[in-house]
């Protein structure tokens, strides 16, 4: 399969993300400020964000963000969408003019409810949505669905991340979880779709690294119907998580241990000390060997009920985490966290392969009273 531009995407990058475990909504300006500090980790060839809780008025609809190269691609995609969904609303994604962000594709969003016909009754709405995303991305030239979850959205472009955040007017959204990414691609020339995050349903992944196991991972997820149209490492991570957490119903901690498993020597030791636990890890590596991510990586994953930070099992890419009250912060550099929360309760460097997991404690999302003045210093 040819990738976009026939090229696979590899890059070095800056990452940051945070969440309020109490579900307080935080203005998107905070994630821009945080990633702005990591300016030098990107080279102006891509950046992006994902926010959760940003569409409270449409929270029961799948929010599709789609980029189109031309009206033809838009027409063809909308034909598919109209056939398969009832549309509760559609509009251009609001943007503001930023001098450095150029060559924008048509950016459109849709709030959709699946209309499963008789033949589709045996598949879930989520599967139906994945099928549609794969269909559009795989078959319609010049169309790319880059966000498809409920009450969340991804925003990405070519440029420096802070400029991209302002271009998408993130200061006009409020979310309980935000993740951000600045890219230093060594390969793909600027194509908007190649920026992070990569998403499927409400999974959004930002990633720093190059997965040496990419083709083993790709061929593994493709066995289960996912199509890696982007040929980036990051896309494959999103599908792996969807497969393990949604289909196989593995606990989050366990799925992280699949992506970055303990070494056999540790498992052998564990089997001597705590046999049952050792057996679990042995079986995980036996069965999910093709899902292991090998090579340097640090990822931050956002999803509807939380946030995950994880580095490879040798920690070849940086990852730090911090807490302040109900806030959990994860970033590639401490500076990105300190910028928006200087007085942390705790800051730590997770060990290689040790996941940082934040969970939404409440199902109801609280509105944060504070309105952020764009000129003032943000302190979360």
């Amino acid at each position, binding site marked *: *399969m040819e990738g976009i531009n026939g090229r696979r995407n590899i890059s070095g990058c800056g990452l940051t993300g945070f969440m309020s475990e109490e579900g307080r909504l935080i203005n998107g300006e905070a994630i821009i400020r945080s990633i702005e500090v990591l300016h030098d980790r990107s080279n102006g060839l891509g950046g992006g964000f994902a926010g959760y809780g940003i569409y409270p008025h449409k929270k029961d609809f799948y929010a599709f963000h789609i980029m189109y190269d031309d009206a033809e691609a838009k027409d063809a995609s909308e034909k598919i969408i109209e056939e398969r969904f009832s549309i509760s609303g559609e509009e251009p994604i609001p943007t503001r003019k930023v001098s450095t962000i150029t060559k924008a594709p048509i950016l459109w969003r849709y709030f959709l409810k699946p209309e499963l016909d008789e033949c589709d009754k045996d598949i879930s709405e989520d599967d139906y949505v994945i099928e549609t995303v794969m269909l559009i991305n795989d078959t319609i030239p010049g169309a790319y669905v880059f966000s498809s979850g409920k009450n969340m959205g991804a925003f990405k472009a070519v440029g420096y991340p802070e400029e991209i955040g302002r271009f998408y007017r993130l200061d006009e959204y409020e979310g309980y979880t935000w993740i951000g990414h600045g890219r230093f691609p060594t390969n793909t020339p600027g194509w908007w779709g190649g920026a992070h995050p990569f998403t499927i349903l409400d999974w959004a992944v930002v990633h720093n690294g190059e997965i040496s196991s990419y083709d083993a991972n790709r061929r593994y997820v493709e066995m*289960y119907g996912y199509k890696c149209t982007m040929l980036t490492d990051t896309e494959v991570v999103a599908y792996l998580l969807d497969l393990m957490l949604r289909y196989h119903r593995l606990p989050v901690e366990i799925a992280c241990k699949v992506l970055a498993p303990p070494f056999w020597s540790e498992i052998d030791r564990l089997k001597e000390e705590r046999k049952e636990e050792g057996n679990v890890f042995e079986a995980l590596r036996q069965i999910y060997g093709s899902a292991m991510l090998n090579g*340097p990586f640090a990822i931050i994953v956002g999803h509807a009920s939380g946030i995950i930070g994880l580095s490879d099992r040798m920690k070849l890419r940086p990852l730090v985490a911090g807490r302040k009250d109900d806030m959990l912060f994860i970033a590639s550099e401490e500076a990105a966290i300190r910028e928006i929360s200087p007085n942390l309760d705790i800051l730590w460097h997770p060990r290689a392969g040790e996941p940082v997991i934040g969970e939404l404690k409440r199902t109801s999302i609280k509105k944060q009273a504070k309105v952020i003045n764009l000129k003032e210093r943000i302190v979360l």
Partner: protein
Amino acid sequence: MKSYILPEFKIKRDNERCIECQVCVRQCAFEVHKVSQDGSIYSENDKCVACERCVTFCPTKALTIEEYEHYIKDNANWTASVQRNIWKQAETGGVLLTGMGNPKPYPIYWDHLLLNASQVTNPSIDPLREPMELRTYLGSKPESLEVEISGGSVRLKTKVSPQLKLEVPIMFSAMSFGAISYNACEALARAATELGTYCNTGEGGLHEKLYKYADHTIVQVASGRFGVHKKYLEKAAALEIKIGQGAKPGIGGHLPGEKVGEEVSRTRMIPVGSDALSPAPHHDIYSIEDLSQLIYSLKEATEYTKPVSVKIAAVHNVAAISSGIARAGADIIAIDGFRGGTGAAPTVIRDNVGIPVELAIAAVDSRLREEGIRNRVSIVAAGGFRSSADVIKAIALGADAVYIATAALVAMGCHVCQKCYTGKCNWGIATQDPKLSKRLNPDIAAERLYNLVAAWAHEISEMLGGMGINAIESLKGNRLHLRAVGLTKEEMDVLGVKVAGAPLS
């Protein structure tokens, strides 16, 4: 009848170096070297098989073997070997026999595939400083696991079927006691145990003295059912149903009665001196559903404690056949390519039947993935693996592990003279003659085998680290790490690889 066959080799003796010690005379079971009445030594070229035993053991290095130069009028079609084979058949009326693997210059795809390495964007890993994991588990894997976390402890709720644990993804392929000597069998079993891998009995049964290596032994059930009994199935880590062999797809086996002495007779459960003939098909397997019955009979007999492998020769329809085998309940499929060796096979079959294992691995791996059943079976590739590079490329194409046999024999001393079927192996390997087989010291042979596989494992670690990978499972089926040179588009499509220099995609 006057024979027209000319010698293949010529022995040159440097008389200035020769001390007439007669080592060559004693070493050659083919009786090439002789002492004349006046005490001087002479050689009969026409008996020489070029096994290099005398050359290696000559204390003064006075001997060399050369090709016999006889003039054949320039002809690309009617070469010396073609004419020789025709004379042999004209003089005997028989099928031409040979040993070892296909020697013809068919393309060797390994030599058209190049490996990747990390530069800048992805650090390579130094195996001398960082852990490098080659451990591999063979067996059927469930699609997913159910794991329960409660009260701070984790518990596995899925039962995983039995797995073979390999510390290196290299096993010793099937070679029977009968085809090879007891000492060779013992050396293989001991090396497999030391290495944390497995040897395979072939279809010759398991000598009682080797029962102690049961945990590192795969026992074969072949069409002749030689040496198969309850204890045999118990003294094994895994069972293998042999359907076919790369060197002779579609035909059975033949161990000549001369090789069936007391020990072989007892182990195979056949009379001394009788030919051991394995039928071409299993007489209880005439289709895939019959194979399934045998797989489950063996599983029942061993109470589902051991994985069951099915070994087939790589033939044209190998992908579809493998899918059927996976669905029939096999835990492992061993695919033996057309370069795989043998103790004895008709030359015409060895040299013309079957397909290269490289293409077979790729086709089978792709097919099982398309059908979504790749997790149900492990793929073991066999047939002509010459080096660690071949092994690592096989894994990148999609194999879980490989079997080696010719390389193991060469490690023990074999010089690939292809005369295994004569029973006169001067290296003490492919023989049952006690005078010859005692030449193979199992201590030394086991050490040589261990060294070979340990060296390959070391090289595999270096290459993996270079690719930025520290566990072998991340290379399995990872074809982006392979690039092709000098192959056609169709060949690259079957192998699932891109040409070197094409953009990453």
